[in-house]
């Protein structure tokens, strides 16, 4: 199979690399199809591969031993799954990253990526800037969870998912919405009904369709946009 070309990749980090840095990684990128709920990074297991999503996205979640869990972020075509533990020198992470929307990923061996970063200060700088954006996003999630109602939190998450996919339809159970928002399933159902009542989304069993993105942005208010703007500034030089 021919290797991915920088002119046609959809991953925004790969697009933002210098030609030299892309050439360093290109021979080692292996396309894989990631399926719904597939684990990409298992908690407390050595990280053997990282993944540049081309389509679809994963959720980063923390899981308590007694079973409760909450999502802290999503990683799609703007990102690199596994970047923060590996680039910050950890061989494993307590967090779980699994597929929320199926799609194509470009996998790379951990040792290969680490060697490339050791050889290229510009590659290291770009990926560390991406990790800074992830940190901004995690703090934003804490802020939003502490400050806003479940409707605002849902609007933000839906926008983040929408940013990482093509089209307007998301496959999503209320169980999953509750994981993303860190709320009970009943709260998730109420929030979905409220946004549906405002005609911003349409909910069918297991599916949500975004009807009015502009109004979702208005509802999300200051809850949405800060990490997205930091990404554009730090990674894409906007």
């Amino acid at each position, binding site marked *: 199979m021919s290797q991915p070309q920088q002119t046609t990749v959809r991953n925004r980090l790969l697009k933002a690399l210098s030609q030299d840095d892309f050439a360093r990684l290109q021979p080692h990128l292996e396309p894989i199809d990631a399926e719904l709920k597939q684990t990409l990074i298992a908690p407390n297991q050595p990280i053997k591969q990282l993944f540049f999503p081309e389509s679809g996205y994963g959720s980063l979640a923390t899981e308590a031993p007694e079973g409760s869990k909450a999502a802290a972020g999503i990683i799609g075509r703007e990102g690199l799954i596994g970047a923060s533990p590996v680039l910050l020198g950890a061989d494993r992470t307590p967090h779980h990253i699994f597929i929320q929307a199926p799609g194509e990923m470009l996998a790379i061996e951990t040792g290969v990526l680490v060697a490339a970063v050791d050889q290229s200060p510009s590659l290291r700088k770009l990926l560390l800037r991406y990790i800074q954006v992830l940190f901004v996003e995690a703090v934003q999630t804490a802020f939003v969870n502490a400050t806003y*109602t479940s409707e605002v939190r849902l609007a933000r998450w839906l926008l983040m998912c929408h940013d990482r996919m093509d089209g307007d339809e998301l496959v999503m159970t209320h169980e999953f919405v509750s994981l993303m928002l860190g709320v009970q399933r009943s709260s998730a*159902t*109420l929030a979905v009904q409220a946004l549906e009542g405002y005609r911003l989304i349409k909910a069918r069993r297991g599916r949500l369709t975004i009807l009015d993105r502009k109004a979702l942005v208005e509802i999300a208010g200051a809850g949405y946009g800060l990490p997205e703007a930091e990404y554009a500034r730090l990674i894409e030089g906007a």
Partner: protein
Amino acid sequence: MPRYFFNLRHRPGSGGLAADHEGDELADVNAARAHALSEARDLIARGRNETIRDWMVCSFEVTDERDKPVLTVPFSDTLPEEGVWD
């Protein structure tokens, strides 16, 4: 284990029911009641939202896999029967 569905009644009428289509597997109806009370406590404590002003008028209408009503758990059941002022 049987699956129970925890439909949240917050107002009279069809618009006042947040239907649960996913449900939770629990050992029996006693476990379902305990689960409903635990969910209600969590909603009262952390469930800030724009639909419900008063949790004490809410209840869980619990149904089984054949959509038959199993029990109703008012959120007021999370409070002790006798208040500290009685």
